[in-house]
Each structure stands twice: as C-alpha cells, then as structure tokens.
C-alpha cells in the first residue's frame, strides 16, 4: 500500500525546506482515516497534508514527543492519522535517511505499519522543480529501501508542480509555521491555515 502525496502535502514540505535552507527540517505526513469496512487494502494511502515540525537540531526527544502527542490529538479530531515522516538534511548533497528519520518512522510504524520516509533531495530544489524532488523509502525486511518516484506518486503532479513553483516564487515560505515557531510563540498555528488557503486558491 504505497503512499501518494497531494499538492498541499508536497507544497508545504518544500516550503518548509525553502524557509530554512541552512538547517535540516522535518515533519509528519497525515492521511485521512477510512472506515474499516470500506478500506480497500490495495488502495494507496493518500497523504493529504503535512505538519512541519522542527528546523535545526532534530535529534532531541522531548519536543518531538510533545509534537507527536499534540498532532495525534489533532489527527483524531480531524479523522486523520499519521502516515509518514519527511526530512530534508542540512547538507545539499545528503538525501539519505539518518538515525533520527529511522527512529521517528519506527515510532509511527507502531500505529501504522506502512509508514514511509520521504526525503527531500536538496540538490534539486529550484523555483520551478519540473520533476519531483523527493525520495520515498519503504520498510522492507528491516531496511529502508527507496522506491522509484514518478508522477504516479502524486495525486495530481501537474497541479502540484505549478502550485509549488508559484508559492516558492512568491516567497510564501516566509509565512510557513512549523512546530518550532509554535513553541517560540503559541499563537503561531502549525496547521498553517494561511498557506492551506493559498494552495486552495491556486487550485
């Protein structure tokens, strides 16, 4: 059951990476809960949104646990569940999942067995991004293996590419709020309603 990314999820991931070009960033991917009796086990899981978590130092536990708890509660209220984890490393040419990524993904996998790790390829991050710049890793036989990423990994790649490009050029990432920003000032809303609206307006 591979995961598929919507425009909103892909967009916010890249905006997060673009907002902090000199830091590592990470976040969670959330998908909509489907009723058990309606669940088609071969259907792909659609990640409808992402929650940007931290930038800078990713390897410390307490705030990560706070974030996971709060986001879990928010998910339950909105009929979502945490389906994946994304990370963009600090160095441009580094796109492999590290220990932090594997640990968080393992934590998520306790509740959702098909958790995926999405890594952003920083070296290909440009304003236009004509091709998808993410790598998706699935857990097979105790190892994380990357899968071929093509336009099928997206709900609508053409739309995703256009909207992401437009928002990057418009510097919308200046308004993106991650969990770190929320901890700095609780009024900052990590669900990013403003960015979500921008994405919707461009659809």
């Amino acid at each position, binding site marked *: 059951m591979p995961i598929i990314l919507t425009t909103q999820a892909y967009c916010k991931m890249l905006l997060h990476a673009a907002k902090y*070009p*000199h830091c590592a960033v990470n976040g969670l991917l959330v998908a909509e809960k489907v009723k058990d009796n309606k669940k088609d086990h071969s259907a792909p899981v659609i990640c409808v949104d992402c929650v940007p978590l931290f930038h800078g*130092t990713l*390897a*410390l*536990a*307490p*705030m990560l*646990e*706070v974030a996971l708890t709060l986001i879990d509660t928010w998910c339950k209220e909105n009929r979502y569940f945490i389906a994946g984890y994304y990370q963009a490393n600090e*160095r441009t040419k*580094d796109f492999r999942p590290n*220990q932090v990524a594997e640990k968080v993904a393992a934590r998520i996998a306790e509740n959702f067995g098909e958790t995926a790790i999405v890594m952003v390829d920083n070296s290909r991050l440009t304003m236009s991004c004509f091709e998808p710049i993410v790598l998706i890793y699935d857990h097979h036989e105790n190892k994380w293996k990357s899968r071929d990423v093509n336009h099928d990994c997206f709900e609508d790649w053409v739309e995703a590419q256009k909207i992401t490009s437009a928002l990057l050029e418009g*510097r919308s990432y200046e308004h993106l709020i991650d969990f770190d920003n929320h*901890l*700095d000032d*609780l009024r900052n809303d990590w669900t990013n309603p403003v960015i979500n609206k921008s994405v919707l307006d461009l659809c």
Partner: protein
Amino acid sequence: MASVSELYDVGWEEMRDKLRKWREDNCRNSEQIVDVGEELISDHGSKLGDDVWIIYEQVMIAALDCSRDDLAITCLQELKKQFPDSHRVKRLSGMRLEALERYDEANKYYEAILQDDPTNTAARKRKIAILKAQGKTTEAVRELNEYLEQFVGDQEAWHELSELYINEHDYGKAAFCLEELMMTNPHNHLYCEQYAEVKYTQGGLENLELSRKYFAQALRLNNRNMRALFGLYMVSAIPRMSD
C-alpha cells in the same frame, strides 16, 4: 518590483538601523538582508559614512547565502579596495570560495591567514566549517575540540560543538559542552533548557532527574519559555518520576 523603502514605507535610516539590529542579533535572514542591504548600498551608500564597510560585509555574507555571487563580488571588491591587506577581507574571499564549493582553494586562503597570524580564530573556524560542509564530522569535531583547548572562552564554538555531538547522537559529550556554556552564562534560560532536553534524550533515572531540575531552572529564569514548560510536564509525566 517595488523597492523595500516603497513596500514598507521606510527611510534609509530605518533600513540602516534594521541591518544593525540583525547584525547584533546574529540573525540569518539572508534574503531580507540582501533586499534591504542592496537597496541601501546602491541608493544611499554615500550617506552611510563608515558604517558602509560593515554593511558591505554583512550584505556580502547574506548574498553568499542566497547564491547572489554578483552582489557578493561587488561588496568584496569595495572592501578589497578599502582594506587591501586585511585578514578579515581575506576571510570573506575564502567564504566566497566556500559558497562556490571550491573548498581546497578556500583552505589555502585560510592557511595563508594562519601562517601570518596563528591566533586568527575566524580562519580556524572557517576551516572547521569546511569540514562540516564536506560531511567530515569526525574531523570537524576533533579540530573543534583542539580549538577549544586553546580558546576556552569561545561560546559560539562550544555551542557549535554541542550541536555536532547532538547530531552524532553523542549526548553525553553534548551535555558537557552545554555545561560549559551554563557555567559562563548562568542566567541564560536557553542553555538550561537545551541541557535539559539533552538529558531527557539520554534517558535513565539520573539523567531524567537532572532534566527535570534544569527544565525547572529554565522556567525560573524565564517563565515564558514554553519548551521548558512542556519539557517539565513531559519529564514529570514519566512514571517513577512523580514518586
């Protein structure tokens, strides 16, 4: 595209003051610095007096961050004209080479500076930054440790070392670096809070107790530190910690 002064309705003095504030706070908002700085230099350069040189330096570094090599070269050339033999300007030339990933050439610049002046801390730190950029974390850690043996009071270096250790998951050594910082800055709630986070991550009863103490201390120093508040809650909520 509208200029910064038009968009935000500010005069050149406010732009200059904003740049000074960002300099003092060591902010890395490079895109904003480039926008404001470029306009300030080109439209109001003559009014800045001696401030113009430090603004050239600030804008040049921000331009490197934004891949604006054209702007970086302009600033660098002005600085070279004004300060032809300066080590500080040489270091900026080295940084430009780093931005272009020409690390070997950059290293040559820094080694030349160090030959001339072995106590030049800026050049040594740039060499360590190059190791970090190349992913040679072990060497970076080793060089930084050697540097700190000589320059024990360099807080920026202790903090950088603590971050390197955290990324390597060597929490014990990261805690040591933060302890050094807390000793010299007992009123800094951020160091207390980060130390508590490292202790929490290390785990184990003793470390969790220390973690709780330092989250509490951070809150005493600044009762609006949300991370300390959340941290105190998290560590107290662990069974056995509330005994």
